[in-house]
């Protein structure tokens, strides 16, 4: 066993990944980035004060200091990676990566270059997000994805239940109904573009439905949790059996 030192900044030891949260109190069902039981390893959450979805979507520069402060507090607790529960935190990706030493992966979209490298050149990537009106090329460019890859962006804003509940402040949420809505969106994307190569579920509230989307489409499905699991494994390497 190595030697362990007291860490006055930590309430508890052993937190693998730190997750920045929007200032939002939705129900976070299992599979949601904001649900601790979505992970096979311990994570620690930290709300960024006054980080409303509106400000984060817009990349409000006045919020940057608070995002960095929360990330530094997570790093001080001992986490080996920092993620978030809203892909638009990508607006602060560079600033946070400069401010801490551990890997920072604030948006599921950061997986796009890898997905693009492993599927055929002419196959589009389908991105399912909460609201396609606010996810534009500017955000895609931040991910480092080459311009030659076609990306189809489909929002959930017009789905009756998701659109009316989750994007506002909701008090309850029926995952079965939302699952049917997400699967419908994915099926329509694949019907319109049968050559679809992979699906990236951008929104942190939608990984609970990744399995259903995969069952419906037969495609690789990436989301926040595939990304967080990937970087967590690289930050906490395990021994291989003897």
């Amino acid at each position: 066993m190595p030697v362990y030192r007291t860490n006055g900044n930590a309430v508890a030891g052993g937190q693998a990944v730190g997750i920045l949260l929007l200032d939002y109190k939705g129900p976070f069902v299992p599979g949601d980035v904001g649900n601790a039981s979505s992970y096979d390893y311990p994570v620690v959450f930290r709300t960024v004060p006054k980080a409303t979805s509106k400000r984060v979507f817009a990349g409000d520069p006045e919020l940057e200091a608070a995002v960095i402060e929360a990330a530094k507090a997570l790093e001080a607790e001992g986490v080996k990676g920092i993620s978030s529960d809203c892909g638009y935190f990508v607006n602060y990706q560079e600033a946070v990566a400069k401010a801490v030493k551990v890997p920072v992966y604030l948006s599921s979209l950061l997986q796009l270059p890898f997905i693009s490298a492993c599927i055929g050149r002419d196959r589009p990537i389908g991105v399912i997000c909460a609201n396609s009106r606010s996810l534009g090329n500017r955000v895609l460019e931040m991910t480092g994805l080459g311009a030659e890859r076609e990306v189809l962006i489909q929002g959930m804003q017009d789905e009756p239940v998701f659109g009316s509940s989750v994007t506002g402040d909701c008090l309850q949420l029926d995952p079965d109904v939302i699952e049917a809505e997400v699967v419908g969106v994915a099926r329509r994307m694949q019907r319109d573009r049968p050559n679809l190569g992979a699906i990236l579920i951008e929104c942190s509230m939608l990984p609970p439905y990744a399995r259903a989307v995969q069952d419906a489409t037969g495609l690789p499905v990436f989301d926040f949790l595939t990304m967080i699991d990937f970087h967590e494994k690289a930050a906490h390497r395990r021994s291989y059996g003897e």
Partner: protein
Amino acid sequence: MALHRRRPSAESYGHAIGILVLETSMPFVPGDVRNAGTYGYPVLYRSIAGISRADCIAAAPKFAELVIAAARALEAQGVKGIVGDESALAVFQDQVREAVRVPVCLSGLLQLPTISRTLAPERPIAILAPRAADVPAALLTRPDISVPNPIVICGMENQSEFRSAVLEARDTLDSDRIEAEAVDVARRLRAEHSDLGAVLLEGAMLPPYARAIQRAIDLPVYDAVTMIDFLQVATHRERYIGYY
């Protein structure tokens, strides 16, 4: 249970990932891409007959046909992703991904952009390879691999046990000695580049030492196995059964 269909070309079912391998032979220790116990899920290996590492580097079209045929055979068996055991196969990445419908990752270097984005662009990323020459400059400038971070390439070719057991393909291999050699190389890398952000182990035979390297230098360590696990997770999603 859903309806299952017979696949005439499948000898057995349930393999998650297919692994293309060249006809090389040496001890494949736990953690090596070519040790089936490395994975938490079943993998299926397929040798590409009649092709050597040198042939891959030459990348003659007839060899591409052999690699594509092997990849198609794996796909027909039902695997949901295809990877390779040898960095030299990376030259076939584009041809193979066009030839099959499942995602293809023939080089661990494809992780570089994803790693790069997690770090400030001025922090170096180290690539530790069996031989430094295994990481050709041409591969690093591919648009889907090239990154803004400085890349530090370091080889294991001057480490005595690694050289004689792996590079000269002896029949025995002392993994404790290779681990000590790999840790030593990684410590020197870290000492020379105090701002190092991450290490990427290139090739199939270094992942067994990833944990020891990480304990010595306290940095994220990526390799072929982190990539294969990533691919497996995305192609075999599970339901989340959690708490409140």
